[in-house]
């Protein structure tokens, strides 16, 4: 007997589609999770080490069996090494995503990327300015060429510090300098982490964790930040845009194409192809009423933020949207794409296409995108999707979509505030808004889908805490209806009044998971405006349903930047009391922020409210007892 679908998700579309998946005999992520139980306790506690082949080794957490690996590493060293490699993988993922955008920018400058261009020239020029490039009397493409070159330098080993650290408050940079964790090169820190965690290199668990922070910062103030900014330059800086969300965004009478992954380079060209009159005419010829492009996960967020393209679902919905039988084609790039998707699609008429030279999947046809051929391949794929419409079987679209407003880049937030962050600071000073929280991260079958995100956000806005969100958390709150101006009614009186005056939702969508750097940029701007450090602000972060290495890196760059961060699922560190204590207590002395772990979002909300009130008290503002 299988568990009720109500235990798997709070989202009605997921519940109904999971019932359909079961009726259709489709295996989903929840089935595979159940089959994995019990999870290996050594691995969950971080006590297994597979780094070398004198092992593999494991440490007995009860203290009677082996207490050291073959090399002599104890629980502290093994847990720290494992965590370090987790951070390295996360930082590498976002930063390599950033590299792909820099390469696209370079090819645009060389005129070899048909279809792409400079969508935000003002940002190109200001960003180039941050890199010390003289933009006077140069055309946009010349600036782009120089900027791409300068950005590539940040990836290398010739710098003493990353250029964009200059955005951080001065006090913060001093802390990094004092601890010796100011990142030097994006790839360098990841590479050094792999070196340090090789057998017989860094065997001081504290020093490994310090480097883990440096590595995470190389992502947050390097690779991810570059990814986000160059995406804006190439595809446009997001502005508030109406859109819709949940599996109901798929359309019964139209050709449905779903993009999945993270990098906007592919999806932007698919969007262009979907809008071409020739393709729309072809769709009509095939009996469809047009072409409907939708997204899932962060490629979906990228398109939604910039173009209002509807969002069909987050991480745990990616298999389920295929069970609608309504998807003609799913096009994926990379990251968070379950290798099971090809098998799910095989039960329906859906064509699955992989596009990245570094990401291939079983049951998918590989059609490699590069900036110089993207436009052409996108056209071919959309044509094939349209032609696939006639092979459609039964379609099941269980719910109507929910409306949402998206597109709150830092620039858009400042614009909504009337051109300066002052009104937000005033509202915080007066106490109408108590503070702000970034709720980010993934879905994880350990936690009922969206329950962590939605419950936490509801409690925060009820208590006058402005929420900004990204990634799968942002999709959860859109599905829950938190991203409409009317949702202000759910907020406490202070936040409600501010939202109604500015006509903004109480939960602001800041983008995909690389766009967490927008939150850092906003926090820095607020700290700079107050002449203080990020760690002094009444703000917090949360990742209630995180699962991935990328999320671990994000969490650590938030904490290392001074943002108290509450995790839902426990990272694999309970095997070392020393590591766990350092991350949840000791870091406060070093960087002015720590992690907390609390799977229950009701309790996580209390932790965040308490933290925000404490910070208010320290700033001399009025503070409530929580």
């Amino acid at each position, binding site marked *: 007997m299988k568990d009720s679908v109500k235990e798997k998700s709070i989202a009605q579309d997921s519940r109904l589609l999971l019932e359909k998946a079961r009726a259709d005999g489709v295996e989903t992520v929840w089935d595979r999770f159940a089959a994995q139980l019990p999870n290996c*306790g050594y691995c969950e506690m971080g006590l297994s080490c597979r780094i070398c082949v004198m092992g593999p080794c494991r440490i007995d957490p009860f203290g009677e069996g082996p207490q050291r690996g073959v090399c002599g590493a104890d629980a502290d060293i093994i847990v720290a090494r494992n965590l370090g490699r987790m951070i390295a993988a996360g930082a590498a993922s976002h930063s390599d995503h950033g590299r792909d955008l820099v390469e696209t920018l370079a090819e645009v400058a060389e005129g070899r990327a048909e279809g792409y261009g400079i969508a935000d020239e003002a940002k190109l020029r200001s960003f180039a300015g941050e890199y010390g490039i003289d933009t006077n009397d140069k055309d946009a493409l010349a600036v782009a060429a120089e900027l791409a070159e300068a950005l590539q330098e940040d990836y290398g080993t010739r710098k003493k510090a990353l250029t964009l650290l200059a955005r951080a408050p001065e006090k913060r940079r001093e802390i990094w300098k004092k601890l010796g964790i100011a990142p030097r090169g994006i790839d360098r820190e990841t590479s050094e982490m792999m070196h340090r965690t090789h057998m017989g290199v860094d065997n001081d668990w504290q020093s490994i964790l310090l480097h883990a922070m440096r590595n995470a910062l190389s992502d947050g103030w390097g690779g991810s930040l570059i990814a986000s900014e160059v995406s804006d330059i190439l595809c446009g800086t997001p502005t508030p845009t109406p859109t819709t969300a949940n599996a109901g965004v798929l359309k019964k009478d139209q050709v449905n194409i779903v993009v999945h992954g993270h990098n906007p380079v592919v999806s932007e060209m698919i969007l262009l192809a979907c809008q071409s009159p020739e393709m729309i005419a072809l769709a009509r010829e095939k009996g469809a009423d047009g072409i409907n492009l939708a997204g899932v996960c962060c490629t979906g967020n990228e398109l939604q933020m910039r173009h209002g393209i509807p969002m069909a679902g987050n991480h745990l919905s990616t298999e389920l949207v295929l069970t609608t039988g309504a998807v003609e084609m799913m096009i994926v790039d990379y990251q968070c794409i379950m290798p099971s998707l090809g098998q799910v699609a095989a039960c329906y008429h859906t064509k699955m296409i992989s596009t990245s030279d570094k990401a291939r999947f079983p049951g998918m046809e590989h059609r490699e995108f590069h900036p110089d051929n993207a436009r052409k391949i996108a056209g071919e794929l959309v044509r094939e999707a349209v032609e696939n419409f006639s092979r459609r079987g039964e379609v099941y679209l269980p719910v109507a979509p929910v409306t949402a407003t998206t597109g709150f880049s830092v620039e858009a937030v400042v614009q909504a505030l009337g051109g300066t962050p002052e009104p937000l600071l005033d509202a915080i000073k007066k106490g109408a808004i108590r503070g702000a929280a970034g709720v980010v991260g993934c879905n994880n079958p350990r936690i009922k889908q969206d329950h962590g995100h939605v419950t936490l956000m509801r409690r925060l806005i009820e208590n006058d805490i402005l929420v900004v969100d990204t990634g799968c958390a942002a999709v959860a709150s859109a599905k*829950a209806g938190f991203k409409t101006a009317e949702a202000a009614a759910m907020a406490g009186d202070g936040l409600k009044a501010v939202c109604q005056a500015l006509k903004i939702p109480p939960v602001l969508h800041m983008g995909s998971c690389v766009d967490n750097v927008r939150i850092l940029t906003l926090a820095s701007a607020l700290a700079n405006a107050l002449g203080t450090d990020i760690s002094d602000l009444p703000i917090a972060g949360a990742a209630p349903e995180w699962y991935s290495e990328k999320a671990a890196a994000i969490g650590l760059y938030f904490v290392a930047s001074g943002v108290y961060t509450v995790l839902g699922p426990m990272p694999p560190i309970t095997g070392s009391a020393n590591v766990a204590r350092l991350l949840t207590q000791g870091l406060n002395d070093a960087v002015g922020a720590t992690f907390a772990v*609390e799977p229950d979002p009701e309790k996580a909300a209390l932790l965040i409210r308490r933290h925000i009130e404490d910070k208010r008290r320290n700033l001399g503002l009025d503070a409530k007892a929580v």
Partner: protein
Amino acid sequence: MKKVVVNPQRCVGCMQCMIACATAHSRTQSLFTAALETPTPKPRVHVGAGLCGDGFPNRCRHCDPAPCMLACLPGAIHRDPELDTVRIDPDRCINCASCAMACPFGVIRYHVDPLGPPGKTVAVKCDNCVDRRREGRIPACVEVCKSGALTFEEMGAAMKRQTDAVARSVASEVEGKPAIPAGVALHRALRRASWEMNQERKENSHEG
């Protein structure tokens, strides 16, 4: 006589015992080659998942009297007095499943076994590693268990150990050392918290 003792509070759910058991009951006796055998060797100990996903190694108790032995019509199940072990004779087994119906612990499986008659599906369960014991080796599941969930000891010694552990935990304030290490306790508390949260009866659907 030494016996396999299960200490469920020590199981970390790694399933190493299952892999070691399947290897010990293969023809080639090495993990890498055993996995390539046909029929595939199967474990006779099974790690189940408890309410919060905690592991439990479920193993034949070699009951006395053994319900499976009483239920076996062809007389394929007998007690080996040398190692106090309930054993199944695969040649006599008629694959009727009566023993599995009688077994209160669900430890009997049916499949073609690499060590049984070729092509014949038979009842298979733990044999206390009789072949290894005759070579002077301890049962495979115990040998591989690093957390102390499976131990091989005299029952008297095991009971004294358990009694002492309980006594120590009662006196833990004096000794200052908890019976369960702090990291393990934290790990289990978080598992329990996740489980309780997912069990909430309170309806939280936002769309339906």
